[in-house]
């Protein structure tokens, strides 16, 4: 789904996702499987809970001295001959990468999966500048061929069936193949192998960066992260400033829980520690190494209401357990980052205006907090966002008026006492068998997808008063 679809309201986007039978099946299978794998991984890892607490603390400690750790990281990278760039906005980040591409005469860029590069819409910019971007994570490759966007942070093509992938390969690669994941994967291997060997530029994100050593860390299962950092002559890593950790000791805490949370693996297949460009005596490796430090709304949140979401590891665990994500999938959210954490990140990147509907796309059940490896309190921040959307008058006036009236009512004993009899009178035309199915005017928004229980013939309070008198 392209950003253009944001012209369709969230309610309609969510509605059509729920009517898409194939998507519903894919979502149920995938999220249920991820939940089970994650649970098993932590069940046989007794240190897990302690390490999660520690990881949470390390993230907070890092933010408390972020300037110092960043300086350390920058100095260490430059000492080894790498270059560091600073991007406040997506435009700036794109300009930095394009400039490197131009200066080095790059014609093709191979990319390993990077949400940061999705976030800054790097591919479109590269294409416009005459550099062909090739996504090499299998899921990302599939959605690039389909001209779509990722629908899950770690499984971008989770919404596609194998038949759809086979049709896509037939159309885009002119290869008629069986709808068999094994066969399809082999085709992608051959197609992409040639790209790895000929590309000039390797573009990655970063799962972590270690300040003390100047190390950029990439975690993949497929090995594409290794390919793009070993073969092309230039490597550019794009990273949000919050991905930094102080030391190698801290890094190992995160590595111990990341894969378990994301895919239920004990450890991902490839963890690649990149420490600058090729060194003297090496046969291969990039001649140039660049790190682009990205702000894009993050720095503002150091003292903002969304600070805690700067601890996110992008593991996707909160998506799988979210009753809303499980129903509507990633595309309906409409932005780069879907799911519960995605709502917060969207607000961070695009401002509260962008989440006036999304802030309500949560039942606040708290399953995300339980699943989050660093226990980010997502519901707390969603409530804050709802408040902000209300206070800045971004929410529709009807919503604000109704909830304000409700607040007044609930805070006044006398008003509340009288609300029962009045509501019984007003609901008479709409209530059937104790349920209100349709409300008139703008109140209808409430009953569009849910029933409202009618006010009882006698409220609890009225009955209580009666009992008191009776005794």
């Amino acid at each position, binding site marked *: 789904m392209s950003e253009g679809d944001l012209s369709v309201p969230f309610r309609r986007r969510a509605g059509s996702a729920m009517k898409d039978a194939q998507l519903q099946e894919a979502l149920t299978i995938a999220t249920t499987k991820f939940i089970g794998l994650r649970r098993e991984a932590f069940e046989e890892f007794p240190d897990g809970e302690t390490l999660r607490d520690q990881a949470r603390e390390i993230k907070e400690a890092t933010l408390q001295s*972020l300037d110092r750790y960043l300086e350390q990281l920058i100095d260490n990278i430059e000492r080894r001959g790498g270059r560091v760039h600073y991007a406040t906005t997506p435009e700036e980040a794109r300009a930095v990468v394009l400039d490197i591409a131009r200066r080095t005469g790059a014609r093709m860029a191979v990319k390993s999966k990077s949400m940061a590069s999705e976030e800054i819409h790097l591919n479109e910019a590269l294409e416009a500048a005459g550099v062909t971007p090739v996504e090499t994570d299998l899921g990302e490759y599939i959605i690039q061929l389909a001209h779509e966007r990722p629908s899950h942070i770690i499984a971008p093509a989770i919404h596609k069936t*194998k038949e759809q992938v086979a049709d896509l390969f037939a159309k885009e690669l002119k290869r008629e193949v069986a709808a068999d994941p094994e066969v399809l994967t082999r085709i992608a291997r051959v197609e992409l192998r040639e790209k790895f060997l000929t590309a000039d530029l390797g573009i990655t994100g970063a799962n972590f960066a270690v300040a003390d050593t100047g190390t950029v860390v990439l975690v993949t299962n497929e090995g594409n992260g290794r390919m793009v950092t070993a073969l092309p002559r230039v490597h550019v890593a794009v990273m949000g400033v919050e991905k930094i950790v102080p030391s190698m000791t801290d890094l190992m805490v995160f590595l111990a829980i990341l894969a378990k949370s994301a895919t239920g693996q004990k450890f991902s297949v490839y963890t690649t520690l990149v420490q600058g460009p090729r060194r003297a005596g090496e046969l291969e490796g990039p001649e140039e190494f660049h790190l682009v430090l990205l702000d894009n709304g993050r720095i503002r949140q150091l003292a903002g209401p969304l600070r805690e979401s700067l601890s996110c590891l992008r593991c996707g665990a909160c998506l799988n357990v979210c009753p809303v994500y499980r129903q509507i999938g990633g595309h309906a959210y409409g932005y780069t980052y879907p799911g519960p954490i995605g709502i917060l990140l969207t607000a961070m990147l695009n401002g509260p205006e962008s989440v006036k509907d999304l802030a309500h796309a949560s039942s606040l059940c708290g399953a995300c907090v339980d699943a989050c490896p660093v226990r980010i309190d997502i519901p707390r921040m969603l409530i804050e966002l709802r408040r902000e959307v209300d206070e800045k008058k971004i929410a529709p006036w009807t919503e604000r008026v109704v909830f304000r009236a409700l607040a007044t009512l609930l805070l006044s004993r006398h008003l509340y006492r009288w609300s029962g009899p009045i509501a019984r009178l007003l609901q008479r035309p709409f209530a059937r068998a104790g349920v209100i199915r349709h409300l008139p005017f703008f109140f209808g928004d409430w009953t569009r997808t849910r029933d409202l229980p009618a006010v009882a013939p006698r409220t609890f309070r009225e009955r209580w008063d009666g009992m008191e008198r009776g005794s």
Partner: protein
Amino acid sequence: MTTREEFLSRIRAEMLKTGGLFPASPAPRPSDPRAVAETLRRQLAEHWPGALERFRREFERVGGVLYRAASLEDVPRVVAGIAREREARRLVAWHPSALGGDLGPALAARGLEPLAMPPGEVGDAHERGRLRQAIADAEIGLTGVDLAIAETGTLVLRSGPGRPRSTSLLPPYHVAVFDRTALIESLSQVGVLLELWHRDELETAAVISFITGPSRTADIELTLTRGVHGPKEVHAIFVEREIRG
């Protein structure tokens, strides 16, 4: 363009507005990683059979196959066995100085076509291209191992002279050779060694690769498929008698 100073001063300005969410400190680091590493080595000198067994279990769980060889001289026999079953002949290997010995002649005698990597960088671009093609065309990549992590069945390989990164990446079969000095129990112990390597700038590398089994993906309908970009099989040969490189 934003400069380093502008970027950092904006961060400092925001940091001044808040005391943070709760009191927090990073993980306690070993003050003397060398001493800790030394203790770990002494402990493992006794406990290595347990660590090796745990490594085997985890390595097999992720799809690896473990073999044992009496000495480095015995390794070509094991490699040839792996190659024969897969009808593989072309092999690229780390330079003998990085591998701990020259296995080329013995491998060739067993019908393989081994090619050792050069000990250092290659100035000539044409020759570099030829070597890359040779690695890409090879069926087996033979490498050493810096660490074998028992907790996760992970092999850790540092890049450097004579040990090109792609030898463990491009060929479909990766065969790695290690001895008990590479064995280590846990991820947290690896943290100590990484701290140590970085104090010794000489021991650190441009790239440190953690490899936990063969390349895999589950991006199509969450169906597990091996060998998507990297090797589809990973074999590890444990050498009983210490390799001296």
